């Protein structure tokens, strides 16, 4: 008898629990992704002709999301020298674009950009608080004519004292990759 009663009790318990009120989760607050970098602009100005300005841009507004980034390369004049300037932005919210360059500048001893290409060469034109390069400002030489790919890497917490690192050689830098983008470049005669 007791068995039957308990069987009924357990089924009642099961039903009553499964029919209790089930609230939707409270609407989550969308985090302010202030750390996200969506845009890198590399502005190159011809050292002897300030009207010759080329801007390379990499824009990926949805971060790690599935939409492919927009990459805009450019065309440079062979063997010409350009002053380069990197700008980092968070454009997630078009109404409130944030400049991430300042954050990198504030922690310049913990950041360094590296540049690599086939014939284009880039040298540093800035120094951090420890007199090591950062790479926000650079001098670029376009090299010989032809198609090239310029890869820009930003390393967080590199070992700037390691061999070759302050000369722009990434091999011994260690650290964490914050940015790695590649631009198609057409170097014309």
């Amino acid at each position: 008898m007791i068995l039957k009663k308990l069987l009924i009790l357990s089924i009642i318990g099961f039903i009553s629990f499964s029919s209790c009120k089930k609230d939707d989760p409270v609407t989550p607050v969308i985090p302010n992704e202030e750390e996200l970098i969506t845009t890198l602009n590399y502005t190159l100005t011809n050292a002897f002709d300030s009207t010759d300005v080329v801007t390379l841009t990499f824009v990926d507004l949805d971060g790690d999301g599935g939409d492919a980034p927009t990459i805009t390369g450019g065309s440079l004049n062979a063997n010409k020298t350009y002053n380069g300037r990197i700008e980092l932005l968070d454009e997630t919210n078009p109404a409130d674009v944030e400049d991430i360059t300042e954050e990198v500048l504030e922690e310049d001893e913990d950041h360094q950009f590296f540049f690599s290409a086939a014939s284009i060469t880039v040298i540093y034109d800035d120094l951090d608080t420890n007199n090591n390069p950062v790479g926000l400002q650079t001098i670029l030489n376009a090299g010989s004519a032809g198609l090239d790919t310029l890869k820009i890497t930003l390393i967080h917490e590199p070992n700037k004292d390691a061999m070759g690192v302050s000369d722009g050689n990434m091999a011994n830098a260690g650290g964490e990759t914050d940015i790695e983008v590649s631009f198609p470049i057409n170097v014309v005669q």
Partner: protein
Amino acid sequence: MLYNNLKLFLFVCLFIVFNLQAQNCNNYIKGRVFDKGTSLPLSFVNILIQESLKGTTSDKDGFFILNNLCQGEIHLIISHIGCDPKKILIDLKKDTLLRIPMSHTLLGAIVVEGEQSSNIYFQSISSLSRTTIENNSNKTLGELIQNESGVNLMKNGSGISKPIVHGLYGNRVKIINNDIIQSGQDWGNGHAPEIDPLSADKITIIKGVSAIEYGAGNLGSVVLLEQQKIEKEPHLHGQTNYTYESNGRGNNVNLRLEKYSKYFAWRINGTLKKYGDKKSSTYFLNNTGHQEANFSLSLQKSWKEKLFMDIYTSTFNTRLGILRGSQVGNITALNIALNAEIPDKTDSLFRYDIDAPKQEINHHLAKLKLKYFFNENNSIIFLLSGQLNHRKEFDVRRAGRSDIPSLDLLQHTYNSEFKYTHSFKNLWKFKIGNQNIITNNTNDPNTGILPLIPDYNNWKNGLFSTLSGKINKANFKIGFRYDTELQKVAEISNDLPRRIIRYENNFHNISGLSSVKFNLTSKQSLAINSGYSERNPGINELYSFGLHQGVSGLEEGTLSLKKEKALKNTLEYIWYPSSNFSINTLIYHQSFNGFINLIPKQKENIDGVLVNEIRTTLRGAFPVFKYQQTNANIYGFDISSQFSIRNSFFGLIKYSFLSGQDVKNKIPLIYMPSNSIFGSLKYQINKSNILNKGKFENTEIEINNRFIFEQKNILIGQDFVSPPPSYNLFGLKFSTNLILPNYKIRFFTEFNNLFNVKYRDYLNRQRYFANDLGLSVIIGLNFKF
């Protein structure tokens, strides 16, 4: 009067005490010691009166006698190799006869005691005793059970490990802590269970087919932590444990006190741990320290041996460092790390400091359990519990954000459970119960990062029933379970503009099991188990989205996942021709329909050929991993053998083989444990040595060896790098007990990775970056009173 069922409640022993005649200081205790499982007599068992240090040893038939005893309260300490030592309080008024059953953990696979015994008798189990737990007080739950056959560890460096049983882990294996299903972020491969093993008296691994009574979602195996009932001892008893570990310069302290009074019985347990950077065979693993502070309180009370109440609360708090050099960024950086001789950011300084990347976890539990016996055949259990799990994970971030967690999850879980057991006259047993679990999971938006898993509410209701009995020589058990799960999810979109997307899922799962165990002769048994179970996809498998630090991959959930269905069959054969030899073989096969695993996402390239998707982001290129379903088979066997020679040498050999195949795509399953051999040889000095007022007992020395084979069942390209080669680790252990009139001191020392071998383990996620741990020397003291 004791009811049949109450016997189960008594942790180890029952005494049958015959009262004879009284005489002051001229009384004797006569007794017989036998193995609880096999009923065979146990010889060479030490019986010692703690107060006077007078003692004796049982003869070949298990008999012993202690003469010329004075009247009054005495404590008897009974110890035997391979058994948990036991302490008995006797109020000696007359000559006394004792029958002492000892539970042999050496033949652990055969003997089961405790409340859970009826549930698990049919399924293959292995269990760890309190002594083993105490001797390994420096270890995490995972590390503690990793030498059990069929058990492996998924690690994230040295401090974070989670158990894998028969190839399954995470939300496929349930951990039951003190009757309560552990609830946390168990989906994460780098998340360890938030449990202090020192609060348990016994840890059991059920390598079963379908653990019907332990809630939805598990596909067979269960790790069970149980506390022993506080003994009816009016004296305050307790112990304190201190362990020092050279690798990591770790200090571990544990204190446990318990007392019985007629109002209530209580037990407290507290643990503190502090470790700094660990060391591989040659270099420091920077930022791999950990800290832990745990406390638990248990209150027990019974009314007229009919109603039993058990209140338990615990808090577990930890901070775990993760190797600094393991946070690298994109796939290019990972490739550099894979080829590096030593990890990035390695230096020669030892530190206790823990910086980002790190995890901080708090887990709190409160439970009320009531058990009522209507009569000797009927009992009911009612359980109520609440858990709070707060997990914060920190990464190295820009602009001082390393102090802001990248993941900040708060989870509340409420559990109610009810179980009714009816025993029939013919020893058949019927059980019915239901479980209700409510989970609420929220992300803190202050991370500044899109959450890896969304906010959700979850309701689980389960109803189960089992029937067990005996027909002729065959014991059988059948069981059935039905579960419903409702998930209500509020996810932040990962495309723009950011918005809230809501989902609601309803699942119905069934599971069933049938078990038969034949006691072929008194010395061999054969058990056949079959179980079917269904598991609905978890929140992480459906909705997770984000970058997985450390493996440099983007993980994506899949909305269209269906239930995972598993059929597992096991066959276990046990042969124990004598108390000096036993052999245990377990063969298992589990086939899955819709096995959910995280594998590289494919997409068509410009030529229309399917290739692994590499997603370009501003941070570089990342491979994309997606939860996908396939059909799979996991099968293998565990074989173990134990033997003893002249009651001085004790040997143990275990071998585990496992193979996992994705049968749909005809490729191996990734992250399946490698095959392994474990062997140990122990020598025990049977004689006790008297030293002044003390007495040394059960002095043991053990050498052990663990050989892990290379995981060859994997194709090139399934992982970033091929599995590491096989490795062979030696260990050495020594322990002795000093018994003094009022207390007992146990001294133990252990050498792990004795030869400081350089190795990497396939299931350690840090193997991409660093070597595993080098030599470690552990010294411990245990003081019992």
